[in-house]
Structures are given as C-alpha cells and as structure tokens.
C-alpha cells in the first residue's frame, strides 16, 4: 500500500493506534544485541507459543476479546540485568529471565495480572514492580530512547502508532525548509557525535551551497570501545532516526541519503533494512513522498569497522568505495562531502533528536538540559558500577548523579577512582571532578569531552597507567597510517607505556611520553590523532604519582600490572607447611618445614598458585 497524501497517513496511523490500544496485554521481550546474546530469542519464541496456545487468546491484532501482543522490542537499556521482559499495562520489568521462567510469567502475569516478584529488581529489601520506579530508570530522561523497549522494532505500524513520521508530516505540510532549519537553529541542538557542532548551522551551510545535488549521511559507525548508544537507537527505534534524516533532507534539499553502519552491527543493519523497506512500501521513502515534491531515497552502507571511519571525510571516502582515510580540510564536508557534493553528516543520536524538536518546538527543547547544551544525552555506562547499561540523561546532570544514583555506585563496595569519558579520544576524570556538569562546554573546560557517550567507571583496583596503555593500543591499532605523528607517534607512545607497565621504564620516559604526546596532539591530521594522547595526558595529570611508582619503584599500586607484582610470604603467618613450594610450577619457593618459606623473585612468574593454595593466607602481593 502506498500512501498518496497526508490524510491517508493519518488514517493509517489511527488504525494502528486502535490496534495497539486493543492489545490488552503486551509482552515486550528485549531484542537488543545484549539480551539476544542472553537468549531472548528463545524467550520470544516460547512466549509466542504459550500465548498462541491459550484459549481466547490471539496473537497480534486478532478480533477476540483477549488481545495479547508479544513483541520483540529494542534495547531497554538495563543490559546488566538482561534478558529483560516487560509486561504492559502493568509495566512490570522482569530481569535475567530464563526459558524456564516463561510459563510462570504467562500463567501469573499474562493470564492473571499477578507479578512474579522473584524476577523483579530489588535492592535494600525493596522490590520494584514497575520499570519506571527502578532507580536506574527513575533518574533518567528518556526522550531519544523513549520507544526503545516499548515498541516492536520491526514493525512500522507500531512506530506510526506512537507518532513516527508526525514531525515529517509537520515539516512537509506546515513548514518551509528554511523554517525547519530555523527551528533546529533555535533549538541549539548540537551534534551528538562528539564535537558538539551546532546542527542547525551545519544544515544552513549545506542549504546555502551553490551546488544543488546534496546528500544526507548518517554516521552509525560508533567505534568507541564499549559504546552502544547509536546501535540501540538503530536496533530499537529505527524510524525515529530515519525520520530525522528525512527532515534534514527536506531542509537542505537533498534527495538521497546514506546510513553508514559498521558491519559488526548486523542486528542494527537488519532492523534498518526492515524499516526502510516498510517505509518504502508505504511510500514514506521514495518519489514524491505523500504527494509532495519531496523525494528521498535511503541507502545502507556497511563499514568494515574502522574507528577512523567515524571521521567525516574518511566516512564519505569509505562510502565512495575508497580507503577510509581522512583528508585535509578545507573543503569541509558541508562544502564537498560525499561524491564531492555538499553533505549533511550527523550521527544517529543527533538525527534521532530532530523529530521531537520539530514536533514540540525549539522552546520546548531548550527547556531541557543547559542553555548552551540543550536536550539529553545517551551514555553507555560501563565498568565497575552496579548498574551498567544504556542511559539517557538531561545535559548538565553531574557525573556524581550518573554514577551513584543511576549507576548505583561502585560495585562490591570498592572506592571510586576515576571515570573515563569520551572513549579513546576523551580523558579520565577523578573524584574532585565528580560534580562537574555533563555538557559539551563544562567537560571541555576540565580537559575531557562528552564524546559520543562512552562512560567507563573505574574503582580503586584499576591501574591508571594500564588504562592509558589500553586506550593507546586501541588508537594505535586504529590509526589509518596516513599522517606521521599519529602513525608513528602513537606507536612510540605505546612502546613507552608498555615499558612502564612492564617494569622496564627509565626515569626519562615520562618526559619523553609527554613530549611525543605534545607533537601528536598538535600536528596530527585528524581528530583521531589529535585526541589520541588525551587518555595519557589526563591520567598523567591526575595520577602522576602512580606513573612514578611504576617507573621508579617498579610497583603497581593497584596490583594490576602483572610484571610488577611481587609475591611475598608473611613470616608471621607462614606455618612452614610447604604446600606452596610443592605447588609452585617453577620452583621459586623454598624453605625448611615448620619455619617460614620464601619466594625467589627472580624465579617467580607471578601465577598466583601459591596464594590460592595457602591455607593460612600468608601469601600476599606487594
């Protein structure tokens, strides 16, 4: 069926709304990548089977009284607790659901409306029945992720029912392209890809180019280790992002768009394909959309998973089939982007923000967040916090609130040490900066960046030198190899860091590290290189002593760096039983029975077998 005009779309939307409302009970099984890995596909199949077999129950939108919808939804965000199952209208959220739990959920909740308490979130003696009351969710403001986990991600009807393409309608029929740009400009929406460039300004620049063939490109390359905000949007609510791209295309006069998704996101690609196909079938994509003069085609381009392809010019080169390497600018992407034509290049989250701005207006949008960074930001909260997962918070919230209120604090009662924000291009922040506001400018002021939204929380057992080494090895591997400072400089920085964690560093190494970092930061060609030293610089700034301990005393205070560990036997505790010596694979332990044993550090390979075997807790790591 092809929608010829606005009325037909409105009618169709009403039909789906009605169908949705007819569903008295909706079982939403998380179909995000995390929960799928936990076995949620089997849960979906079992729940479908159970519901289909029940009397008076019709799956989907049957004519009978008891309508039950069993849906494979997008990511709910509480990945730590997956696989997740939500049952509406009760809003029960079941955690870590196993196949064996399905029957109980069906009989208790679906058929009788009763909660299965053992599957619910509980902390401090309290059971949280409704998803919205769980602290992890209660402190969030889910706007971009609003539909993620609440609608069937593979059905455009569901999306239409909750308002998809309403903003496109408004733009097409009630606004001029310039009015759209003006609204986005006034909303002060800033690019969520990392740099925070004003989106409206970008669109305006493209619209003003003399060349009339223009493109809209969505960056779904999301290469930061541990980040999955964009993936979740693409998987869970693809139409929101597509709608955003279409509004951009209408605003700047583009007829073609590309979504660049890394090939490691097969589910996102699949969901996007389904979404595009369904939109095309309805004529929401294609020629003369809804009978207007606006035509727009959308292509998916899979990237080979190169971090550097998140950089604009490398990304467009990659779409063109060339090697993904950044080029010198100017010309900028807005002037000569894809195929040398003016191009709007925004990331997934940015486009996903657009429909609600058009729908609710710039003033509404500016009422959320801070004056200079309005709106919300999604973060992938990972590391040593209790609740890891995907969160969305208003800009300006403090790190403390995110880590302790939403994240539930540090896992295992350990102390907070640092939070790494902005991925390999970002920096580490410490206790002293916990009250810093999460917005583009505040973070920049303290030497970090909001980045695309990766947030790794680290506890006292984390070695900051090792963290720096990890990120450096990442950027070093992901450097495209084009410019000398990034290609060769990061390699030498990594070598020094490896020496430091390996116990072979010399006193001058720290200065040399800083010297090369300075060169790389100030002379590299693209953002990847320029920001590559940030994790190193920020950790040296805040944890210089820890570096010195490694270099001078060959000690890793956090006890992480293998090569620097020293196993010792406490003579007070040792009873001389010889168990450790017998179990040592390299014969490094010796001593007289019934008197304290000793470890020869030159022979010891730090395997830890002795400590694990000691019945008296006499062996410790220094």
């Amino acid at each position, binding site marked *: 069926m092809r929608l010829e005009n606005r009325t037909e779309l409105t009618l169709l939307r009403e039909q789906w709304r009605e169908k949705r409302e007819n569903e008295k009970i909706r079982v939403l099984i998380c179909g995000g990548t995390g929960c799928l890995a936990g076995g949620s596909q089997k849960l979906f199949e079992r729940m479908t089977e159970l519901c289909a077999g029940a009397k008076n129950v019709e799956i989907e939108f049957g004519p009978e009284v008891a309508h039950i919808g069993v849906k494979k939804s997008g990511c709910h965000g509480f990945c730590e607790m997956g696989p997740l199952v939500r049952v509406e209208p009760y809003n029960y959220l079941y955690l870590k659901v196993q196949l064996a739990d399905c029957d109980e959920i069906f009989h208790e909740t679906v058929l009788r409306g009763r909660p299965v308490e053992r599957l619910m979130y509980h902390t401090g003696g309290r059971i949280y029945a409704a998803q919205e009351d769980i602290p992890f969710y209660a402190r969030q403001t889910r706007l971009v992720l609003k539909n993620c986990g609440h609608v069937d991600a593979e059905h455009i009807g569901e999306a239409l029912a909750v308002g998809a393409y309403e903003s496109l309608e408004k733009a097409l029929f009630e606004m001029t392209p310039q009015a759209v740009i003006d609204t986005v400009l006034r909303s002060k929406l800033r690019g969520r890809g990392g740099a925070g460039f004003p989106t409206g300004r970008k669109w305006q620049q493209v619209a003003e180019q003399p060349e009339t063939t223009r493109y809209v490109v969505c960056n779904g390359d999301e290469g930061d280790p541990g980040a999955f905000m964009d993936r979740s949007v693409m998987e869970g609510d693809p139409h929101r992002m597509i709608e955003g791209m279409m509004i951009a295309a209408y605003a700047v006069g583009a007829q073609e768009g590309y979504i660049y998704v890394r090939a490691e996101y097969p589910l996102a690609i699949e969901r996007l394909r389904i979404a595009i196909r369904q939109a095309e079938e309805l004529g929401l994509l294609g020629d003369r959309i809804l009978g207007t003069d606006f035509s727009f085609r959308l292509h998916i381009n899979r990237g080979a998973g*190169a971090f*550097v392809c998140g950089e604009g010019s490398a990304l467009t080169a990659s779409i063109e089939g060339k*090697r993904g*390497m950044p*080029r*010198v*600018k*100017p010309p900028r992407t807005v002037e000569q982007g894809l195929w040398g034509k003016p191009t709007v290049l925004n990331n997934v989250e940015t486009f996903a923000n657009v429909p609600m701005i058009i729908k609710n207006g710039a003033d509404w949008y500016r009422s959320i967040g801070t004056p200079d960074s309005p709106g919300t930001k999604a973060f992938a909260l990972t590391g040593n916090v209790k609740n890891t997962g995907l969160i969305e918070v208003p800009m300006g919230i403090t790190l403390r609130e995110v880590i302790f209120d939403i994240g539930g604090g540090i896992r295992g009662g350990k102390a907070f040490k640092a939070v790494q924000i902005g991925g390999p291009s970002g920096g580490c922040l410490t206790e002293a900066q916990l009250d810093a506001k999460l917005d583009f400018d505040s973070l920049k002021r303290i030497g970090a960046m909001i980045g695309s939204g990766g947030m790794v929380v680290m506890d006292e057992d984390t070695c900051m030198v090792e963290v720096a080494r990890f990120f450096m090895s990442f950027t*070093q*591997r*992901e*450097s*495209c*190899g*084009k*410019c*000398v*400072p990034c*290609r*060769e*400089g*990061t*390699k*030498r920085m990594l*070598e020094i860091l490896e020496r430091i964690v390996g116990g072979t560093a010399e006193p001058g190494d720290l200065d*040399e590290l800083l*010297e*090369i970092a*300075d*060169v790389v930061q*100030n*002379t*590299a*060609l693209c953002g990847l290189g320029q920001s590559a030293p940030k994790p190193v610089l920020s950790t040296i700034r805040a944890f210089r002593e820890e570096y010195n301990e490694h270099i001078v005393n060959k000690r890793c205070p956090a006890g992480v760096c293998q090569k620097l560990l020293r196993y010792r036997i406490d003579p007070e505790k040792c009873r001389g039983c010889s168990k450790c010596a017998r179990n040592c694979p390299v014969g490094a332990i010796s001593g007289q029975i019934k008197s304290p044993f000793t470890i020869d550090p030159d022979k010891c390979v730090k395997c830890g077998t002795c400590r694990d075997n000691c019945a008296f807790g006499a062996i410790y790591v220094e």
Partner: protein
Amino acid sequence: MGYMTIDGMRVEFTDEKNILSVIRKAGIDMPTLCYHSELSIYGACRMCTVEDDKGKTFASCSEQPRDGLVIYTNTPRLMRYRKIILELLLAAHNRDCTTCNKNGICKLQDLAHKMRIHYVRFRDTRPVRPLDMSSPAIVRDPNKCILCGDCVRVCADTQGINAIDFAYRGTEAIVTPAFNKKLAETNCVNCGQCRVVCPTGAISIKTNMEPVWDALADPNTIVVAQVAPAVRVALGDLLGIPKGENVMGKLVNVLHRMGFDEVYDTTYGADLTVLEEGKEFLERLSSGEKLPLFTSCCPAWVKFLETKYPELKDHLSTCRSPMQMFGAVIREYYRDPERNGGKKLVSVAIMPCTAKKEEILRPESTTNGVQDVDYVLTTAELAGMIHMTGVLFDELEMEAADVPFGIGSGAGVIFGVTGGVTEAVMRTLQPGHDRSGMTAIKTSGVRGADEVKEFTFPYNGRDIRIAVVNGLANADRLIKRIKAGEAEYDFVEVMACRRGCVMGGGQPTGAGPRTRAARMKGLYDTDVNTQIKKSNDNPMVMSLYQGLLKGKEHRLLHRNFAAAEEKSKN
C-alpha cells in the same frame, strides 16, 4: 589577494593556493615530504606545520591564505615538532643511506641533515620486507617507504593507472599493488613517475649498468649507443651543469671514453618516425579509416591503451617508436660482416624513460626473432656510470655523434617535449621552408606545457583536428570524450609523462618548475640552432631510404605484429 604576516614580515599573496606557497614565496624553504605542487594536497607528513598568533598549529599546505593572518614558521616549538616528526619517520625507515640509490639526493636525508638530527632514539621494529624486483623498469623497496603517498597520487591523479595504493592500518600500512601482487602483474605502464616523485629510495630504476659495463669491456663486442633527445637537456643536472643545458657534445665524448664504439643520435630515429607516421597519417586521412591516429612513440601510453582500451588498438600508429626504428636499423646495418668485423653487436639505448626498458622486451620489438635493442640505460643510470668513471664531465671537450646516424633534424629533437611529435609531422606536411609557415606552426597551439592542447591545422584545403595530451589521466579523459562522441580528432599525440620525455621517469629527480621549463627550452633552443628543420630534409635519412631500407621499410620501421601474435598464442 591580501597580506599575511609571516615571522613578522608582511607578505603579499595573490592567487597562491595555500599558505605554504606564500611562505616559500617569502623566501622560507619550508620543509615538506608529501607536497608536490602538481599533485593533490595530501597533508600527511605534517612537516609544514606552522602556528598562528594564538598558538594554534596547522599544516600550511592545507590552509588557504587569508588576509590579516599572522603566522610563525620557526618557533622553538615548531622546530621541536619537526625534529620529532623526522625522528619518528627515520625510526621507521631503512637507514642504510650510504648504500642507497638515493644517497645524496634523498629528501629525507636532506631534511635530517638540515634539521641536524644526529641521533634517533627509537628502534626500527618493523619486519624486513622483500623487494619487488618483478618489473623490468622499477624496483620497489618497502623498507625505505615513508608512506608520503606521492607515488600513489601521481599514479592515480596524473596517470589514472592506480597500480599502487595503501593497504593495512596504522604502523602496518604499506604501499602496494592490490592483493599484494607484484608490480609486473599489475596494469603498471612502467612510466616511472612514482620513482620521480619518491622522496626516498623506496622506488628506483631497475638498472642495466652491469651488463653494459660487461659489454664495454668485452673485446668481442661492438657496442653502439643511441641517445634520445630529452637526455641531453637533463643529464647535466647530476653533473654540475646548469639546468636545461644541452650537453650532447660532452655526452658523446664521455660515451666514447667509456668504450662505446659508436654513438648515434635517436633524433635520427625520430626523423624516420616522422616520415613513416606522416605517410601513415596521410593514408588514413584519405581513406578516412582508423581516425584519429594515435601516436605510438611512448611505450607507457601504448601499454595503457592496449590494456584499458584494446578496442582502440587499431588507432595506434603501426610505427615503431624512434628508439625501436633506430634499433632495427642499427642491427640491420651491423649485419654486414664488413661492418661488424665478426664481433657481436650490443645495442644500447640511452633514454629519459623507464618504460623503454619494458618496450625492448616486447615481442613486436624484434626483427627476425632478434631483440632489436639489447639494453636501455636511463639518464639517471648514465649519470651514475659517468660518476663511476671519475671523468670530470663539465671539463670535457665536445664531440659530434658518429656517422652515418649522427645527424638529426630540429623536428626530431623536439620529440622530447609534449607536442614535439605533432609539430614535427606538421612541418613535414607543410610544403616549403618560408619563415611564416614555421611561425604559423609554432603559434598553432602545439607548443606549451598545457596538459591538453586542441587545435586545427590547415592541410590540403581542410582543417586537421589535432589533440596533444600529456599525462595518462588526461589521455583517459580524452578517450572517454572521443568514445562518447563529444570530441573528434584526426591526430592525437599522447605522452605519458607531464611535459613529455623531458620529465620522463628515467630523468634526474628533484626538478622544480624552473628546471622543468629549462629542459623544454633546452630542446627548443637546440631546434633553433639546427639548420635542418624538417625530417624529410635530413640527407642521411633520405639516403637510408635509397640504400639499406629499400624494400625493408615495413619490416624495420613498423611494429612486428606477427611476433606479438605468435607470443600471445603461446
């Protein structure tokens, strides 16, 4: 148009395309390793980084000049950056400088010296990679590659070949043909432009010096040299002679001293080519078939056309290149036992070109099953051989090339410049010798360094439509236009290298704009000083047609397609 402040100096800029050009105009030799004014801007070496008055650093090659901009080029900070960048590069580079083919003319070595880098603190941890010796013309040594991308860009931008590109990431990045194939297995046309732009010794000429030395020392051989026009205006670059000066006289002398029995001038071969190609062109013009006629002097171009547009092969002139015509004639000449005295002929061609090394090996470059030319030495190799003899080149007396093939016309000598072949043919087609006729040709649009020249020339009551192209990427675009029916020509001259053979792949490297112009001028000046302007006025050529060539014109002067076909069957 505007003013910038560079290191406190007020510097005017006009149409400079980047800040780097303005800095250099201001008399500062800003170091670069990946910048070539004729290639696209790449911005990889970062050596040209400058800072503005706010301390912001940027690469000056990739920013446009702006009025009022204040920049500094040599602050202690920038010098430190440059030194470290160089040190990083040197650490990942085979530093066997003393045994490198680029020793003394290497840009990296030069910069390391200028920046006074006396110690490299990092160790080279890269695996040693094998050399690619597969090509008859070019040797690639990945261990000396600094990944500046100049070769990649000249191959893609200027030549449209794309035989090499980057592969792999980070420190594992290398320049390589696709799928790590050998260069000889690719569509490489052996033009050698990659070697010309390579700042280090990573791409070099496959040398034939050794077998030539051996032949020269062998009492049972008679060693004959032919010297191409473009060699004489470039060889001096490496021997302390001013740029563009014609050194043919000294060159003949030194070749004799090295032991060459006879030294001939390929200009003579060019005259043969003009006559044959002129005849062929007139035949095609009257029959109207296989037009436009494509020139066939340039082996890189011939290979390009045969590989990429085999359907247009028939449009190529069947003429051999001047070197090959001459090579066949020389071999025929020395078949006479009276002339060879029972010795074996070794025919050496001294060329500005690396593709010639591949051309002599082609089956159609044989006569009666014998390879016409035995060895090709490039200008750069010859300079090396002269260095080895220890002869003080600039102090040598001049000598004339040997009879009977030592005389060439002015038309033959300008073969070394883009448009030269066409002009030579035009001269032959034009009757009479009056000055106005020569001026008309000169001003017809055939001259100049433009990449594509299109013009018409009146002949026999009609306008001949001519295109003169240099750079294979330009040729590619022209062919596409011809195929699409957007352009129509009768005669098309193509030289693979920009500006023609004077900038060939076997010439001394490091030629800037002044040297390029000087080489072109050098050949045109030689033409001016030559009394015989037309190929058909060369008496030695005309007597050859009456004598040795009689009845053998086709066999000796046109490509041996039978042998080529035979080869392709096997």
